[in-house]
């Protein structure tokens, strides 16, 4: 069984984002890069499937710029077997990334049984790549999954929709699945795992190696800017028990008369 996991490397959630002077992208020089948090659930799910199917092979694939702290390494340290990196800029659009992932998967010569990815990358927040990749490969897909069961080629997954309701899907492999938080608890890469990871095979491709060019861009971004700052609000001290009722009454009054939201 061939399992592929698509991962992306994104700025840490605590990162302060600064647009570049010309607004063409963000400053990337001093950013701490992490594996996209949702992708950790995808890697973990691949490893859980491998535990139940020891002959399975897990390949992690990433499209993006080369990093000093490579996110593919923790995935290998967690237990993935091999990795492929398609070197590209960090501001590619979803269509180009999906096409590059497809190209990299095809380069391995392995026919995918299950392709896992995070439901979204927390940099451009598009929620597109897994579904585009599925369509490009002619495969079914289920996104935002929080539950997974497998019995031979039969897969049963739970997809989370509005309000926490669940759609339960049945599908056969091959399939593309986009993972949400709650699916599993990702393991930490162990120290021996990290030592081993550096010896595992990692293929590197250029965008042209995998058949992607600038002509594949569908979405153009410009004018990166910070959102407008709100003017300072009003702050009330309600630490004194005697004043609490007055203060809260005042705020509720302002919500009606000034903010007009209630």
């Amino acid at each position: 069984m061939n399992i592929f996991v698509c991962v992306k490397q994104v700025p840490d959630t605590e990162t302060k984002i600064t647009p570049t002077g010309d607004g063409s992208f963000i400053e990337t020089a001093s950013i701490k890069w992490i594996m996209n948090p949702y992708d950790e659930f995808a890697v973990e799910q691949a490893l859980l499937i491998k535990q139940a199917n020891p002959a399975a092979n897990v390949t992690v694939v990433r499209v993006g710029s080369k990093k000093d702290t490579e996110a593919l390494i923790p995935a290998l340290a967690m237990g993935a077997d091999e990795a492929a990196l398609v070197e590209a800029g960090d501001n590619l659009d979803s269509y180009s990334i999906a096409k590059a992932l497809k190209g990299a998967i095809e380069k391995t010569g392995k026919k995918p049984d299950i392709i896992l990815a995070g439901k979204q990358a927390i940099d451009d927040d598009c929620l597109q790549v897994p579904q585009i990749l599925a369509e490009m490969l002619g495969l079914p897909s289920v996104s935002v999954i929080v539950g997974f069961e497998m019995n031979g080629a039969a897969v049963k997954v739970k997809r989370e929709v509005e309000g926490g309701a669940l759609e339960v899907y049945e599908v056969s492999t091959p399939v593309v699945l986009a993972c949400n938080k709650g699916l599993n608890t990702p393991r930490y890469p162990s120290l021996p795992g990290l030592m081993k990871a550096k010896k595992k095979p990692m293929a590197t491709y250029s965008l042209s190696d995998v058949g992607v060019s600038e002509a594949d861009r569908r979405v153009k971004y410009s004018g990166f800017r910070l959102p407008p700052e709100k003017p300072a609000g009003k702050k009330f001290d309600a630490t004194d028990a005697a004043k609490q009722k007055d203060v809260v009454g005042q705020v509720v009054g302002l919500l009606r008369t000034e903010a007009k939201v209630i």
Partner: protein
Amino acid sequence: MANVLVFTELHDGHVKPVTLEILGKLAGQTADVAVIGDIAADQVATLAKCGAQNVHKLKGANLDKYSPEGYANAIADFIKSKSYDYVFAGATSMGKDLLPRLATKFNAGLASDVVNFTMDGGAFAGTRPLFAGKCLAKVELTGPKPHFVSIRPNALGMTEGLTAGAGNAADVNTNAGEIRAVIKEIVKAASAKVDLTEANIIVTGGRAMKNAENFKILNDMADVIGATVGASRAAVDSGFAPHAMQVGQTGKTVAPSLYIACGVSGAIQHLAGMRTSKVIVAINTDPDAPIFTKADYGIVGDLFTIVPILTEEFKKLLGK
């Protein structure tokens, strides 16, 4: 002027508000609506009032429930019979799942989760948040048409004084094709409240809630003001609330009219997810908590005493 199709899903037979937001913003363009299956006459009238010229009811076998493949095939089948420049839909659970696959059937691009846009000269130019709203960027589409756009609910707002469209409703036969991923069962949510992403009022609890049981005081307040209850990442990771309730960069990005943060310190990833709320109220014991930098009304105090008083005051105000 552009030729635009707006895809709408129905919730309990009703058109989602985001569809009407989109139609209002498209005033001046030629806008049709497509829906899967039947739609009641009063809903067609509502769409027409917001400018819809034609309402296409897409019908065919295996479209009685949602499937990414079936819906994408059927809508693509219909779009191919027309010449739309743009296809819009709400960035709902279904919209987010469906549109990437649908757009790829045309090798076309999709601008997701757009919060504002213009159609100058019939060409789309949008604004969308990136990095969970830590920054904004202009987004444009290129390549084969139609171009696809998903719109974040609650972001555009409703447009007043629209010129009505003809609202001609007709059935269209479509082919859902092969469907491999099939919904076998739907497990309803524990709460019947609107989703955080579509809520008009949100009450959120942070780490200071201390446990899951204490969320009762937030639920009590939410019931009075018709709010949906959310939680910070710290509260979710501590097991006080399920991930479906998480607001922030690894949860949901929300934009309600009123956001009440209770015992939320205001980590940068949380602020990113709720900063576009129209009015923010924060309750926290720490006067220096970062949440106060984003609050229109900050109350320094203990949420366990303030929230019940707040609930009582809301009850008085609303005559409950």
